[in-house]
C-alpha cells in the first residue's frame, strides 16, 4: 500500500500542474493515468497542434507544454503510475483507499480528479460479434506479436498503428490490411512501405472496405467486409485487429457516488471539492457556473484544490500563503540554490 497526501487521477497538463502547487505547500502526490505516457489529451490528441492561450507562452505545442510542466515538477520527484486506471475507491477511517486496474493500492486523505473527459481506451469494432471474440481473436493492441506467427490476420485502420503492425506482422503472418478509404492517414513512409509490400506480395491491402460481420463459433474462422457501394467479400482469417485510435470514457468514476452533470463533476469554486469530502475535481472534468474548458482555468483550479487538500492532509497545521519570489521555505522545496 502506498501512502501519500494526494492521489491525482490524470497526468494531463492540469494534473501535472497540481503536483507543483501541492509540492510548493509541502504535500506529496502520486499520479495515476491510463495512458502509457504523461500529457493527457495534449499528447494523445494534439501533440503537434500549437496552443496559443497559455499565459506568457505565445505559442507552444501540446508536447512542449507537457515537457515544460514535467520540468517544473522535477523537484518533487513524483511517482507516475501509468497504464493504470483507478478502479475503486472506498473510505477507510478518514482516508480514501484507492485501487487501480493493476491492483496497486493507495491510501490518501485526498483525491484530485483531473481526468479530462475520462480515461483513454481503444475504440472498438461496432459489430456485436467483436465483443464475443475480444481477446480470443479480436484485439485492439498487441502485447506479444509472436502469438500471430503463421496465422491469418486481418488488420483494420488507416493510421500509423494499423500500417506499422501490418508491415511488422507480414514478416511472419498472412496479413490483410483493410481500410474504409483508399488513402491512409499514417506517415507517408509507412504508407509507401505498405504499398511496396503489397506489390511484392508480402501483404494484401483491401480498400475501401469496412467490417460487417465476424464468423465462427468458438474461434474466428473468417470475416465479411463490405464497401460503401455494397460490394461484399468474405475473408478467411484467424485474428482480427482493430486500430482506430483512442476514445475517452469516464469509466468507473461514475460509480463513486459523485454528483454528475452531463459527464462532468460539479464542484464548489472555493476549493474545487466535489460532494464528497476529500475528493476534488479540476480541469475539463469539473463544472461550475462560468466554467471554461481551458488549460489555464485548470491551472487555477489546481492551485485552489491544493489548498483544499492541505486542510485534510495537515489537520493540525495552519496553511500560510507565501510567494515563491520571497519565501525561503518554498524555494527550498523547489531546490533553488542561493546566489
Amino acid at each position, binding site marked *: 500500500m502506498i501512502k501519500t497526501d494526494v492521489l491525482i487521477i490524470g497526468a494531463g497538463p492540469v494534473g501535472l500542474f497540481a503536483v507543483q502547487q501541492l509540492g510548493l505547500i509541502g504535500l506529496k502526490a502520486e499520479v495515476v493515468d491510463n495512458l502509457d505516457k504523461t500529457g493527457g489529451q495534449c499528447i494523445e*490528441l494534439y501533440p503537434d497542434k500549437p496552443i496559443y492561450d497559455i499565459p506568457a507562452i505565445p505559442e507552444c505545442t501540446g508536447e512542449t507544454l507537457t515537457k515544460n510542466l514535467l520540468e517544473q515538477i522535477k523537484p518533487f520527484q513524483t511517482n507516475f503510475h501509468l497504464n493504470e486506471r483507478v478502479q475503486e475507491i472506498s473510505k477507510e477511517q478518514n482516508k480514501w483507499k484507492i485501487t487501480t486496474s493493476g491492483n496497486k493500492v493507495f491510501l490518501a486523505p485526498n483525491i484530485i480528479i483531473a481526468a479530462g473527459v475520462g480515461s483513454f481506451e481503444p475504440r472498438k469494432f461496432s459489430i456485436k460479434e467483436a465483443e464475443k471474440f475480444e481477446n480470443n481473436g479480436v484485439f485492439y493492441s498487441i502485447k506479444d506479436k509472436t502469438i500471430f506467427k503463421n496465422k491469418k490476420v486481418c488488420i483494420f485502420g488507416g493510421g500509423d498503428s494499423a500500417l506499422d503492425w501490418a508491415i511488422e506482422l507480414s514478416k511472419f503472418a498472412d496479413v490483410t490490411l483493410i481500410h474504409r*478509404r483508399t488513402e491512409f492517414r499514417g506517415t507517408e513512409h509507412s504508407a509507401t512501405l505498405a504499398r511496396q509490400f503489397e506489390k511484392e506480395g508480402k501483404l494484401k491491402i483491401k480498400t475501401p472496405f469496412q467490417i460487417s460481420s465476424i464468423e465462427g463459433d468458438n474461434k474466428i474462422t473468417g470475416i465479411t467486409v463490405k464497401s460503401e457501394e455494397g460490394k461484399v467479400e468474405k475473408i478467411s482469417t484467424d485474428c482480427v485487429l482493430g486500430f482506430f485510435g483512442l476514445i475517452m470514457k469516464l469509466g468507473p468514476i461514475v460509480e463513486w457516488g459523485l454528483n454528475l452533470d452531463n459527464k462532468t463533476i460539479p464542484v464548489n469554486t472555493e476549493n474545487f471539492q466535489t460532494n464528497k469530502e476529500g475528493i476534488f475535481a479540476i480541469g*475539463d472534468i469539473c463544472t461550475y457556473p462560468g466554467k471554461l474548458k481551458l488549460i489555464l482555468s485548470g491551472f487555477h483550479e489546481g492551485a485552489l484544490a491544493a489548498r483544499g487538500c492541505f486542510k485534510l492532509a495537515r489537520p493540525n497545521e495552519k496553511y500560510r500563503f507565501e510567494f515563491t519570489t520571497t519565501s525561503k521555505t518554498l524555494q527550498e522545496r523547489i531546490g533553488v540554490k542561493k546566489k
Partner: protein
Amino acid sequence: MPKITYTEHSGKSHTIEVAKDLTVMEGAVQNNIPGIDADCGGACACATCHVYVDEQWFDKLPKIESSEEDMLDVAYEPNQFSRLGCQITVTDDLDGLVVKMPSKQA
C-alpha cells in the same frame, strides 16, 4: 437564423435555430441535443460529433478537409455522407440542413 434539423438515431428529430458562424456541433451541444458528444470541444481531434449529412445536403457543404477525413477513419460506423459537426460552420446557405446522428459516438 438558419434552421438545422438534428435527427437522433431513434428517429426523434429536433429542428432548432442555430446562429450563423456557430458549428453544427455547437448548435447541438448548446441546445442539449442528445447524440453528439464533442469530447475534444471542437478541435477536430476526437470524432465524437460525427453526423450523417442528409444526401440532398451533402454536396452543398464546403469540401471536407483531409484532417477531418482522417478523424472520420476512427468515427463510429462512418459512411459516404459522414462529416464531423465541429467542422461544419452554419451559414444562411445551410438553412434547412438535416443531419442524422449515429447509434452512438464511440
